[in-house]
């Protein structure tokens, strides 16, 4: 395989090293600055990851009391273990808080920046390498997903390192790189669900393309494969249990018992429409509209006014795709495989343009953009570099200001904002004997465990009574405690409440809407917790008649 070289001369190497260090600092800055407070809330999935890591650190068990599980579960969702286990020492060091929960993702995002720069450099030379670094530093998707506890972001890092190691193996023919690549492929598969499908597809094509080199190193390859299979046994075992497939089948397009759009019984062909639907879902991940304008349909996974890439990146992307239309080497072929396989897991679900499930496709689109930028820089020289740098600076400044201000102001409700304050209020009212939380939109129990240490022991005691360790992985039904110590999580009927004032009620604004408070006789508002936009998030009250 013919890869370009990343700076053959010493002076070049020094310059490139400085640029990469600068990229690491700037990229790290965008990912770590006020990590604990931006985004403003702490989403339930983040709380689940962070709390389970904390439990492992303090007790060696997960929130259900299972000792060092190979897969974790929270609110009937199973998730892969790497993020949690990597967060365990962080919890020991920094304690349980928003920053420590997000740290691994931010770190993964920062490392990914450098890895993508190195991949681009390895394939197309130093200019494209620097372009790859710049694109990874400033891309909205990369900043956005690095600032939340997203295990998929960790998966992207492992996948990128796997690709880089493989390219090194093919170039240097040193089996150590092959072993390293295999190791990172396993880590990627233990990080996030989507990687379980994309890694094997990419890996099989990668092996096929360099089968001769692998045959030359067959001894190491065989040992690696055997070791890999042994390491994957727990994952394979889980894949066959509900813990492994429950989530995938739950969101699968085939299992939702919904006919494809436009289907009328007896009028048109079901399978034609189903295939058309799947094709439409797949192509949505390459649609300029989604990539450069509309973003994810779910507001929790998108910044206000920005998509996954900046609109101007359409031009270098088109140039990059054009220049790579005939792949010159195996590296470029493998990029195409990455690009085409990336959206497969997301396509199998019925959601349109789910950026998180298709997170793997964005780094490779970034690589195509960096190839295009490299071509532009080659053609236009210093003027091209200057103009692109200015555009990049303006873009990232605009995105950051938008993300840190407007997005936080108008989308805090998407991030379960307000729970931290809820439990501060609860703690400051010891005269209230009992608390009831009504918030059907979130898994309130996991937010309680995250922000209210006083309720953790009681929850662990009660959940221990109902968990059957034999069907922990095989029974995906609801398995949680709704009432423990002096706390209840349930729907409040405002016609049937404690009127002695001894019970405090925490109602999400969707459950006690503006103006409804005045219709409850004797209701005394203890505190209203607002979103940064000034709209109510929670109302905390008791009733005295």
């Amino acid at each position: 395989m013919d890869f370009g070289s990343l700076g053959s001369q010493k002076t070049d190497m020094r310059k490139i090293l400085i640029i990469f260090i600068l990229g690491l600092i700037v990229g790290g800055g965008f990912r770590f600055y006020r990590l604990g407070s931006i985004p403003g809330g702490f989403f339930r999935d983040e709380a689940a990851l962070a709390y389970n890591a904390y439990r492992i650190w303090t007790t060696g068990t997960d929130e259900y009391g299972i000792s060092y599980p190979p897969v974790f579960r929270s609110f009937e969702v199973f998730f892969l273990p790497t993020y949690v286990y990597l967060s365990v020492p962080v919890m020991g060091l920094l304690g349980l808080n928003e920053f420590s929960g997000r740290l691994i993702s931010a770190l993964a995002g920062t490392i990914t920046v450098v890895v993508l720069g190195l991949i681009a450099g390895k394939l197309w030379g130093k200019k494209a390498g620097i372009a790859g670094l710049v694109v990874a530093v400033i891309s909205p998707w990369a900043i956005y997903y690095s600032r939340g506890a997203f295990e998929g972001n960790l998966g992207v890092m492992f996948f990128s390192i796997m690709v880089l190691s493989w390219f090194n193996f093919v170039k240097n023919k040193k089996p150590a790189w092959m072993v390293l690549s295999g190791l990172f492929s396993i880590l990627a598969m233990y990080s996030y669900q989507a990687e379980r499908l994309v890694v094997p597809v990419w890996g099989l094509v990668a092996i096929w393309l360099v089968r001769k080199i692998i045959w030359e190193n067959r001894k190491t390859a065989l040992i690696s494969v055997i070791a890999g299979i042994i390491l994957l046994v727990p994952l394979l075992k889980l894949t066959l249990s509900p813990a492994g497939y429950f989530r995938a089948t739950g969101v699968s397009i085939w299992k939702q018992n919904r006919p494809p759009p436009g289907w009328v019984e007896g009028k048109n062909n079901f399978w034609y429409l189903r295939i058309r639907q799947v094709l439409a879902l797949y192509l949505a991940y390459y649609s300029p509209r989604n990539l450069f304008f509309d973003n994810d349909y779910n507001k929790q996974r998108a910044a206000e006014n920005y998509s996954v890439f900046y609109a101007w990146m359409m031009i270098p992307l088109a140039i990059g795709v054009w220049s790579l239309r005939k792949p010159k080497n195996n590296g470029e072929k493998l990029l195409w495989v990455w690009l085409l396989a990336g959206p497969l897991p997301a396509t199998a679900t019925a959601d349109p343009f789910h950026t998180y499930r298709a997170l793997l496709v964005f780094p490779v689109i970034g690589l195509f953009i960096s190839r295009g930028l490299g071509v532009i820089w080659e053609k236009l020289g210093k003027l091209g570099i200057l103009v692109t740098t200015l555009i990049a600076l303006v873009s990232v400044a605009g995105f950051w200001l938008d993300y840190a201000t407007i997005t936080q102001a108008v989308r805090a409700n998407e991030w379960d904002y307000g729970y931290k304050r809820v439990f501060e209020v609860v703690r400051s009212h010891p005269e209230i004997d009992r608390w009831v939380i009504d918030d059907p939109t979130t898994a309130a129990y996991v937010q309680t465990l995250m922000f209210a240490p006083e309720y953790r022991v009681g929850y662990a005691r009660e959940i221990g009574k109902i968990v059957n360790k034999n069907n922990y992985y095989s029974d995906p039904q609801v398995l949680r405690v709704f009432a423990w110590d002096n706390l209840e999580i349930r729907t409040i009927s405002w016609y049937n409440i404690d009127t002695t004032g001894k019970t405090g009620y925490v109602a999400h604004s969707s459950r006690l809407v503006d103006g409804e408070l005045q219709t409850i006789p004797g209701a005394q508002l203890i505190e209203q917790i607002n979103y940064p936009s000034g709209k109510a998030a929670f109302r905390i009250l008791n009733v005295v008649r």
Partner: protein
Amino acid sequence: MKFIVRAIFFTELSVFLGFFGYKVIFQIPPEAAPRVIEQRLALKAAGYTGGQLLLTNKYLESYRYHLGKILRKADFGYYFFANHPREIPGEVNKQIFPIALLPVMILGLGQIHGNWGYLLGCLVLAGDLGRFSAGWILVVWGVKRLICAKY
């Protein structure tokens, strides 16, 4: 071939200028105002009272509106998949081209080099008619490439 493409392009351009005029691109859409107001109110409530308010304004909103309008029409779903998952709100999305033509069009993209300005012009300027023409230009190019590859 070039003559046909140019003829289509200039027809589109004249239709566009005649019917809509330049103001279509430069006018500030009525949808901009509520979004700007909502975002500014949220920013003020969050304690941002200075330059941050400039982040949201009618000119930026207008730019986003027009960009969105163009890019929504550059969506594959709009052309090939009726009832696709992200239909344009308020419009009945019909299937404009048969799915079978998709590979031929992708093949036709190979002929864009040197002609892309016309194609882009058709897409951006002249509404559904332009996009319909642009699609068929791609089909013609695709077929041409197929024939050339055969002989």
